[in-house]
């Protein structure tokens, strides 16, 4: 009996002592951070801007809104804790939706800014990362009645980009994978401030942890097509007609698949990008009869347009930014290990000269109207 009691006591001790963090906190004693912006500080260190959720009062009918607070610190964690001075509450980071990095900071190197969010246990690895067109602070300071909690709106706005493919959705987890892989580079969506609103389009391309340049909205779609991540979108095709003005045809992208292959000729690698895309005809600006011949013609134009867009993007990323967004290195490594072993160290010289061929196959499965 004594042994039994002792055993139970030991169990209770173990159970209560080995729990690790004793992190109990009442909801009203903490600030729920919904979004954070990180900029390079004027002197040294970082300037942080947060949107902390200010719960509304259901009895008074005031909706929830956000408090915008700023803080400074030599490191991000330092700055985060310094919020206690301005906010008078401990900030909790479990519900961060978005992290916005200022352009200036991103150009000098992004990992000191994001390391805290990967290392600390509170932030979720699914939060989205953005590059601010200018500073992150000005984006987070936007106040607009239409979206009382802007971070939630921002997260939603990039989620619905899958119907448009003009900005990628990048979680911090995916972003860090891009940084950590040796021959791969990450990319982030860009957020622009327009009066008291924000717009998300375009892509910031990184080389290593440094921002090297931007892609426009259309180039972003080209990039996503190569990556096979273009889920939907509208491709406008100009169909020349007998009349003066060409007829515009919008094709809704239904399915876009890509495959990247490495080919070797005389021991020299080249990259073959194949894109297979299926679309529906969404609207036609003029009166034409969509017979099989016409559809084939449109198919050809469609493929041409894709090819043009994709090639332009690849050249920009490969030759201008020298960024390994497409993971061509990985493709080559997988195809020909021997070649890779010998030439891995010269990859930075090889990559910009690598020849890339783009092949596009298109199909139009529905024209939207019953004949």
């Amino acid at each position, binding site marked *: 009996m004594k042994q039994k009691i002792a055993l139970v006591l030991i169990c209770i001790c173990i*159970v*209560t002592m080995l*729990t690790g963090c004793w*992190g*109990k*906190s*009442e*909801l*009203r004693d*903490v600030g*729920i951070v*919904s979004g954070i912006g990180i900029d390079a500080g004027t002197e040294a260190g970082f300037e942080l801007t947060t949107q902390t*959720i200010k*719960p*509304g*009062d*259901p*009895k008074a009918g005031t909706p*929830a809104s956000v408090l915008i607070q700023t803080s400074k610190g030599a490191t991000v964690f330092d700055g985060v804790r310094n919020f206690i001075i301005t906010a008078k509450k401990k900030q*909790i980071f*479990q*519900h961060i*939706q978005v992290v916005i990095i200022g352009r200036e900071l991103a150009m000098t190197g992004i990992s000191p800014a994001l390391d805290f969010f990967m290392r600390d246990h*509170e932030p*979720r690895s699914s939060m989205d990362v953005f590059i601010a067109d200018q500073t992150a602070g000005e984006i987070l300071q936007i106040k607009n009645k239409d979206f009382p*909690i802007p971070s*939630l709106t921002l997260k939603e706005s990039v989620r619905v980009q899958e119907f448009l493919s003009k900005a990628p959705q990048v979680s911090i987890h995916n972003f860090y994978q891009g940084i950590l892989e040796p021959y791969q580079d990450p990319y982030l969506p860009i957020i622009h401030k327009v009066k008291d609103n924000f717009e998300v389009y375009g892509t910031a391309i990184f080389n290593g942890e440094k921002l090297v340049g931007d892609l426009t909205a259309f180039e972003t779609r080209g990039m996503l097509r190569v990556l096979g991540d273009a889920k939907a979108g509208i491709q406008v095709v100009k169909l020349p007609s007998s009349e003066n003005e060409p007829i515009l045809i919008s094709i809704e992208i239904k399915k876009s698949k890509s495959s990247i292959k490495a080919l070797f000729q005389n021991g020299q690698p080249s990259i073959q990008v194949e894109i297979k895309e299926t679309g529906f005809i969404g609207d036609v600006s003029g009166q034409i009869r969509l017979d099989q011949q016409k559809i084939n013609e449109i198919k050809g134009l469609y493929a041409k347009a894709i090819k043009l867009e994709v090639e332009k993007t690849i050249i920009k990323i490969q030759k201008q930014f020298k960024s390994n967004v497409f993971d061509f290195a990985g493709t080559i490594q997988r195809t020909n290990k021997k070649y890779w072993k010998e030439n891995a160290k010269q990859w930075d010289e090889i990559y910009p000269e690598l020849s890339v061929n783009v092949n596009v196959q298109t199909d139009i499965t529905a024209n939207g109207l019953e004949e």
Partner: protein
Amino acid sequence: MYKWIQRKIHFKKLMNEKTEISAHFVSSELKENVNFIESIIQESSDIIFRSFDIGINQEVKAFLVAVEGLFDQTAIHENVIKPLMNLDCGSRDLLDCLDHLDKELISLSSIKKELTMDKSIEFLLKGDPVLFINGINKAFILGARAWEMRGIEEPVTETVIRGPREGFVETLRTNTAMLRRKIHHPKLRIEQTVIGKMSSTDIAIVYLDGIVNPEILKEVKKRLRKINIDAVLESGYIEEFIQDAPYSIFPTVSNTERPDVVAARLLEGRVAIMVDGTTTVLMVPYLMMESFQSPEDYYSRPYYVSLVRSLRLIGFLLSTLAPAAYVAFHDYHKEIFPTELLITIASSREGVPFPIFIEVILMLVSFEWLHEAGIRMPRPVGQAVSIVGALVLGESAVNAGLVSAPTVIVVALTAITGFLVTPLYDVTALLRIFYLVAAEILGVYGIMCVLAFFLLHVASLRSFGIPYTAPWFPITWSGWKDFVVRVPLRNLTRRPEDLRVLNEVRQNSEQGPNNLNPNERGKGR
């Protein structure tokens, strides 16, 4: 200390000494019998003594004792006193005549001869009038028990929409008759014993011979025999003495007020224990999954029943875990709430003065108070309680900012789902508190610790040798036919495997309309 223990032992010895009265035999002298009874009964106003003379020509003194209110006065008058008074034996000796009293003279359906006084008094106090005749050293126990009795009504605790509307009453005989009316089979056995030194309460052990596992039956009888108490006022007294785990919060004996439930359980191979003076009948062995069954599950069509069954299971879990999870998520794991939900909760908790644990436990305790008051209060003040309960504790508390609305919702949900599984209501209420305290101290980790403890505990329980958690632990797949879902009755061809019954086959398996004779198939169109 030592003295104290000694005294205890001494006291125990005293308790165990049998207080036997040496047997008194019925005397042939009427006077002696009367004196003896009077000396034992002394001054009890409800005992009737009636002396009269038997026979018209010759006269023999006779003496009837009965308890007023416990026997049928007209029957005794018409069938005993009247024929005896008018007895004309002709040339035969009156005492010879009276020897065949039970066979010829008295037209009651039950009449017993008793030789000892003690037995006679026992019968007397149970309601049977006793007749003594001068010159005969036997007491005649006249089976004319009858008393005022409540009519058979629908049990208020277990109501159904479809199903019989009768419930047990306080008289054992009526109750056994109700069972007999459900199962007209010679193998329905109703064995009777008496428990309680003071109360001498009749206990009936009911089972279906040939179906019930004899080991279980033996165990039931053994445990009943061991009971040595003053009085049995309700079947709960018996339950506490025969249950397998007397210190567990989980019941291992089930109970019901419905004859149809008892009949169904008997047919599954269980043993019922009926106690005189109460409407509640005990049934063993009891499996935990029975708590999620209702008699109506078998009277309604199976699909909706299966839905409701699974909802009951979910409701049970929700009822025990919801307040704890709410507190744990709020205090320790804020990331579990979706952001929008967290904002709503945070908004409603603005300005609430108490920590969430205090808030939840206050609401839970208030609910238990309301529940208890609702049962205990005199009916006419019922309205007052419901107004105070619903308005003050619900709306006003929220409006005054003392309690947040989500807390009220969580507690209300907890309370309502708690009533889904009424056999386990007490368990649910206790578990809820355990989980809640663990959640406050250790978060979800704490809940998991307590949950693991209770799961192990429940898995270790047995009810009369049958694993308490069957059929889910240990798994018997045939039991799952009647657990979360209830398959159509025609597929429930076997009795529950877990109960290890003697005769497993309930019905043959080919009873579908497809198996009918093709000639009959077209009939009835």
